[in-house]
């Protein structure tokens, strides 16, 4: 393993994050605060508690997931697309690095940034609502796995995209609807029976359900299934990335 290459890519990517620290830090704090003002206070006060958890506290895991997923995708896709766009990818291709090292460097940095923002939102949320975390290890595991798996997805999008429009296509047209319909702001038990069944085909449901379980012990689907879903998703992304590098698809002519 070329560890110094991994470290070099990681440092270089993190430098981009620190260059825009105010934006990286303030933007999630502001948007989370807005969600709490609107959903937690204005609307939430009219919504009943859900299985003993106030509505404001109930939406925290979903809000964290929403930001973390979007950021992991955008960080990782931008991280690898930008060198392609600028042409600086020549250096990566001519360096003594293999695909595992490239992925660890880029995905590692993207996941770190997403994790950081996830923690910032968690801290911000604690100022608005009473948070309790019943299963801290499971919470950390879900958070880290989500950061990693969606960074992998972002990496794939960044490799696939041939312009900026395509970069935002998957996050906006696929991921955002799945997250909003995946139980971020509601428990799926609130839905009519037909939609409860349909919702089970949305993979994000398993993610948010598992993550919420780690906070309050509340789950829409069994926790084992949630864990399996996130692991399967990570495996799928890894498989696609392995194929991309093996064939040089969209990277090496």
């Amino acid at each position, binding site marked *: 393993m*070329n560890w*110094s*290459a991994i*470290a*070099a*890519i990681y*440092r*270089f990517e993190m*430098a*981009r994050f620190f*260059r825009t620290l105010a934006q990286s830090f303030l933007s999630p704090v502001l948007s989370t605060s807005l969600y709490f003002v609107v959903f937690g206070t204005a609307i939430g006060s009219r919504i009943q508690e859900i299985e003993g958890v106030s509505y404001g506290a109930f939406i925290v895991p979903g809000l964290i997931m929403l930001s973390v997923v979007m950021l992991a995708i955008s960080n990782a896709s931008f991280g690898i697309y*930008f*060198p392609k766009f*600028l*042409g*600086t990818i*020549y*250096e*990566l*291709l*001519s*360096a*003594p*690095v293999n695909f595992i090292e490239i992925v660890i460097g880029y995905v590692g940095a993207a996941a770190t940034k997403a994790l950081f923002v996830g923690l910032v939102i968690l801290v911000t949320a604690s100022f608005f609502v009473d948070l309790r975390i019943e299963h801290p290890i499971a919470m950390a595991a879900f958070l880290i796995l989500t950061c990693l798996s969606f960074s992998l997805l972002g990496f794939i999008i960044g490799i696939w995209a041939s312009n900026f429009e395509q970069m935002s296509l998957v996050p906006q047209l696929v991921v955002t609807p799945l997250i909003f319909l995946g139980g971020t702001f509601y428990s799926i038990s609130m839905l009519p029976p037909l939609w409860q069944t349909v919702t089970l085909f949305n993979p994000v449901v398993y993610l948010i359900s598992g993550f919420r379980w780690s906070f309050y012990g509340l789950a829409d689907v069994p926790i084992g299934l949630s864990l399996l879903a996130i692991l399967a998703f990570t495996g799928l992304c890894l498989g696609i990335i392995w194929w991309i590098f093996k064939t*040089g698809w969209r990277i*090496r*002519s």
Partner: protein
Amino acid sequence: MTTILSIKDLRKSYAGGFEALKGVSLDIEQGEILALLGPNGAGKTTLISTICGITTPTSGSVAVGGHDIQNDFRDARRMIGLVPQEIALEPFEKVINTVRLSRGLFGLGRDDAKVEDILRKLSLWDKRKNAIKELSGGMKRRVLIAKALSHEPRVLFLDEPTAGVDVELRKDMWEIVAELKQAGVTIILTTHYIEEAEAIADRIGVIDKGELLLVQDKDTLMAQMGKKQIEVMLTEPIQTIPDSLAAHNLTMNGNGDALIYTYDTHADRTGITTLLNDVAQAGLVLRDVQTRQSSLEEIFVNLVSGEPA
């Protein structure tokens, strides 16, 4: 001499059937400077990209320092530095960080002294903390060179390093190349500026339509293929070339005060003595005589157009 780069029957075809490289074979000796000349689209950049790992070859093999570029890619690539033709740099990053990134990518630990040395040599030290977008085009090109040198390569590829570069930077570049050669670095450069190849290369390779037409020692090439011209300057301008000199196929300059005679340096008889005698016989008085060797550019144009020089 040891061969540091060995290219054997290298071919590259694209999906559409276009053959960018049609079986290039070439051995490059350690410490030499090879200039690759060729028109646009000749395959120069494809050749370099294939050796460096940016493009995958269709068939054939390349070994750098005995390391195959595919089976032993890490050891092969560690020896190679590449300065690409296009300026490709992260605009918001600082100069020093992008150079450190390159060093790290090639598996070397952080070495501030080494990076400082490279940046100073390239007159970039004062700009080390500047974001790359603040630099001029010439400075950006220096950054690309700094990145390529950051991991101390044994073989350096310069893909049109002086395209769009001012005279000062071009001279600096030539000095850097000379210094690297002193340090035993092998340099392969592609260029459009034939005087550049003429000035710094040891050997010249001419590539066109994916084929290596010729690789030869620069001086031998120029001696073998070059023609010489003798310019006979006259004290009094003339209107037409006297009929008695017709056999010499002379041309006249615009002012009519000089006659130009082209001859082959390798011919048994150059015909100079007869020419000068005939000129004197024709009653013309010589003011001066000078000779001129045909440039590499003329040789190159003739080679690519398929005509003898």
